[in-house]
């Protein structure tokens, strides 16, 4: 009986302790400075005066070896099953100038990690970050966004396509990311 009483008492105390958890009341709002003054933007339209956009940099964007690794991973993770060798199929083309979710390295990284609502799977947590950045670096080469020195100089695919470097300048290519600073 005493044990039961002790037990009930402990239980009551536990509930009481939990009840003490109160909503924290903030007397100050977040400082205005906390707004990300230079986010990576997905659009050029801004309310009011235009603020500068930040360009994200992938760690491997200028690294030829990492880009070739990115190509290998692009095939092995079946990215090529939907985007093929840049022309698209189930997923949109990656070799043209249209970027639904942005061509900035950070945009591409986010697209791979988060997935996109109309069919792009979310690879975040399934693939190491390091590999995602390599895939990101390779994806940018498909539309000529990578520095010339780092781009692969020939295509290894069955298709007798000209190399990435030799793609006709008349053909549509992606926009280079802007570096306002």
């Amino acid at each position, binding site marked *: 009986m005493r044990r039961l009483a002790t037990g009930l008492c402990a239980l009551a105390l536990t509930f009481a302790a939990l009840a003490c958890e109160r909503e924290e009341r903030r007397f100050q709002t977040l400082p205005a400075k906390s707004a990300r003054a230079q986010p990576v933007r997905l659009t050029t339209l801004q309310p009011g005066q235009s603020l500068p956009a930040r360009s994200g940099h992938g760690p491997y964007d200028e690294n030829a070896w990492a880009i070739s690794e990115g190509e290998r*991973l692009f*095939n*092995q*993770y*079946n990215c090529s*099953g*939907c985007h*093929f*060798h*840049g*022309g*698209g*199929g*189930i*997923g*949109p*083309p990656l*070799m*043209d100038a*249209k970027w639904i979710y942005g061509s900035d390295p950070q945009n591409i990284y986010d697209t791979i990690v988060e*997935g996109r*609502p*109309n*069919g*792009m*799977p*979310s690879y975040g*947590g*399934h*693939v*190491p970050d390091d*590999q995602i950045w390599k895939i990101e670096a390779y994806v940018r080469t498909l539309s000529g966004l990578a520095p010339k020195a780092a781009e692969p100089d020939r295509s290894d*695919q*069955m*298709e007798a*396509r000209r190399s990435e470097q030799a*793609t006709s300048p008349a*053909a549509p290519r992606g926009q280079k990311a802007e570096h306002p600073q």
Partner: protein
Amino acid sequence: MRDTASGHRWEGSEQFYRGAILALGLALGLAGCRTRASKEDGKPAAPARSAALAGARVAGQPPAQQDDGQWLMPAKDYASTRYSALAQINTANVAQLKPAWTFSTGNVRGHEGAPLVVGSTMYVVTPFPNILYALDLTQPGAPLKWKYEPPVLPAAQGVACCDVVNRGAAYDDGKIYYNTLDGQTVAVDAAAGGEVWRTMVADINKGESITMAPLVVKGKVLVGNSGGEFGVRGWLTALDSGSGRIAWRAYSTGPDKDVLIGPRFKPFYPQDRGKDLGVSTWPPDAWKIGGGTMWGWISYDPELNLIYHGTANPGPWNPDIRPGDNKWTAGIFARDPDTGEARWFYQWSPHDLYDYDGINENVLLDLELQGQHGQRRKVLVRPERNGYVYVLDRVTGEVLSANPFVHVTSSRGVDLKTGRLIEAPDKKTGFGHIVRDVCPAAPGAKDWQPSAFSPRTGLLYMPHNNLCMDEEGVEANYIAGTPFVGANVRMYAGPGGNRGAFTAWDPAAGRAVWSVPEPFPAWSGALVTAGDVVFYGTMEGWFKALDAHTGKELWKFKTGSGIIGQPITYKGPDGKQYVAIFSGVGGWSGAIVAAGLDPRDGTAALGFVNAMKDLPQKTTPGGMLYVFALP
């Protein structure tokens, strides 16, 4: 249950390892597969073929049956003839055909569907997001009665191999039944438009989707999955038409109990007899991700109480990963619709090397074959993707004839003694090499686009392809919910340079009677009427009417977009005959336009883009229903 958030979304298939293991993949629990490895009406037909005609009759229908002017299922009847006995529009007056009214779907993807006409209402289903519209045919201009919009997961677009198409609905007992891209079967009250039931039957996280039109047989809604390019395990399932509950499911691979093979299974050929062939004709466990989907057509013979359905290609495309006959893929089953039990099976393409899905239409005829005077046989005619028109005894599954209807290099005929396709060793695809000049290409001599049969002419009217390809086998990694193909492909026009054709075929004699070349694959369905007019559409957007006897073009109309839909005809409440067709390019062949693919990568869209680089100059996307009538 879905488990997207957890790590075990990746499913393994270690058994396939024959070369280097991808350590990075293993670290994630992701197993890579790297390998090296009739209505006979007595009217005399064209004199040249009267012998063949005498024997042609549509199965399961009394010869004198009148056409009620409705269109209740995409193939018109259980025998899948797409033949209408309406004859107001005929060879003499079809040239006066004019648009009567149109209806915009507001959808820019491929419109492969067939409209239905039930009483005085027309029903159309759009591509994803699969909206059902009911149009009132009693009013001028057929205004909208109602629309039904099911909740469809947009993510399903990521597991649809070949555009986000839908091939139509079926009507039975007051309800419209159809499938959604994300794997649901829905039943909608045909009068009021309310949802009666909705059942999730497939799982996009396994790579499954649904694009086929269901068939309703004896209170069962028959539905099959898509996803042969995603390592899914194919199945056909029956849902109770009243409740939406699953009555049975028959898989295309795996142990006999899953395939619904039991004591009543009597295949004609010895290679299809034996225990658990759906397991033993695969490397260990490969059948679990081996394809054999059922995204095509089903026919039904009420007399024999048998349904007939094909099974699609084995996966992945790279055949080195799956030595064996890969049963029961790339074949055809006869099943009891009540229980799903398999009664016989025949394999069009054992150990398929070229993505020859075996899911095309099965036209059920009672036919007097050439040289067999007076003997009418119950047959099933199948224009098959591998390039042959097969005539099968539909009671037993015996191959009676198999004749090529296009240029074929991928095989050397069908051995009528053994029933087996004769392989072409020089065209064997696989890892590490490129095989060139493979004809027909992966979409086959004829893909899903359904043909029509006229008991008046005794001819089968086939819209089809004339494509060849180069194929390179590469590694294929199975990651659930992503493509599992293992091949780079580049397609191009076959001999003659025309990428398609519309051919009239005499199934009794096993030969073409006439053929009209088309610049692009003829990717629409066909329709033939008692007016001896045959209709089909082209990918440039022409809707054409030909003389069913001669193939002479009698009329054409340029619609707003390329046509890949299925034409139908019906008698309106005003007593007039109408012809309806969806315009709206897309599908596998038209993905370059509907999805805006880049022509510089010929391997895009599984290599179809290489053959369609000029399509964007010929047509633009946009779905619209066109309905034609005589003035």
